[in-house]
């Protein structure tokens, strides 16, 4: 799809965002929710497969709703991380990716600490802070779609596969991908990072957050 076509498609479907946002009309963050919904619409337009047998509107509504719900969840549970720790977390993230590229496998914690000339405890604190963060960065949500069809087949082996699919459906699409790749395809976090085009620390954050959100939904499943 060319850029003008894409822009036109987004403009043609923007009414869906306002339609979904109607239930939040009295919300003080209405404008931000609409913005989150627009991001969901753009994601849907960029990843829509016209040959999949469903219309764009049908495909886009769950994505729009998911983005809005995710915005509300993030807002209610976001954890403030001190600036210094955020800076270290950012350095650790870069170091993990660089050392993985150099060595062909994920580095140990002492290796990361030595690379950055910091204490091992600082690396561990940065990792915990990374998991405590809940906000999704743009790069996480713009990752390419992995081929999930075969993973859905492995979920089908579960007696309660429908409940699992429904629970996964409440997560942003990239979180669904990460969960399926880690827990059903048994890929390592390094492999998932490579496949989704995101950093390993983002994968860690996504998995921790996804499990936290899925736990109450799948308590008995």
């Amino acid at each position, binding site marked *: 799809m060319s850029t003008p076509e894409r822009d036109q498609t987004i403009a043609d479907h923007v009414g869906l965002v306002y339609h979904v946002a109607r239930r939040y009309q009295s919300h003080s963050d209405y404008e931000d929710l609409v913005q989150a919904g627009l991001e969901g619409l753009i994601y849907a337009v960029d990843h829509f497969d016209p040959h999949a047998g469903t219309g764009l509107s049908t495909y886009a509504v769950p994505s729009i709703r998911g983005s809005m719900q995710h915005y509300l969840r993030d807002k209610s549970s976001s954890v403030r991380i001190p600036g210094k720790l955020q800076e270290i977390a950012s350095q650790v993230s870069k170091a993990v990716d660089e050392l993985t590229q150099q060595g062909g496998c994920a580095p*140990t*914690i002492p290796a990361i600490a030595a690379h950055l000339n910091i204490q091992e405890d600082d690396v561990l604190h940065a990792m915990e802070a990374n998991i405590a963060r809940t906000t999704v960065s743009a790069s996480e949500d713009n990752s390419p779609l992995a081929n999930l069809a075969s993973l859905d087949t492995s979920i089908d082996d579960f007696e309660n596969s429908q409940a699992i699919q429904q629970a996964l459906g409440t997560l942003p699409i990239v979180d669904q991908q990460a969960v399926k790749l880690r827990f059903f395809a*048994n890929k390592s976090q390094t492999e998932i990072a490579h496949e989704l085009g995101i950093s390993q620390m983002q994968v860690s954050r996504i998995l921790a957050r996804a499990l936290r959100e899925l736990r109450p939904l799948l308590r008995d499943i």
Partner: protein
Amino acid sequence: MSIALHLPAQPAYASIARNLAATIAARCELTYDRVEDARLAIDEAFNQVVSNAPDNAEVVCTFVEEIGAMEFMVQSRTDLKDLLPTDTFSWTVLSALADEVHTTNVDGVLSVIARVEEPQNAAA
């Protein structure tokens, strides 16, 4: 040598077990991936054990460290009459995160035991 951590059987204490697991996994020279797996695995095991524990129970997390591998056991008194079910999403998660995992329920004490190790250790 093993390291033991005693905590109230409440989900809010999982973060303490997570942090200790990560620290010990780092001491075992596990790679970044596996440290994160260990952290998620103990979180999952802790929540499974706690959700089947009676009020006012205590959870004991025991860790055994070696170079390239870490074992942990999460244990508490339980209301459960049988073993933890292993056909659940939670157990699938735990099985994917750990290289070995099993559960016991002996004399009203529920345990989840898991081992996280580097691939070269697993192959040896």
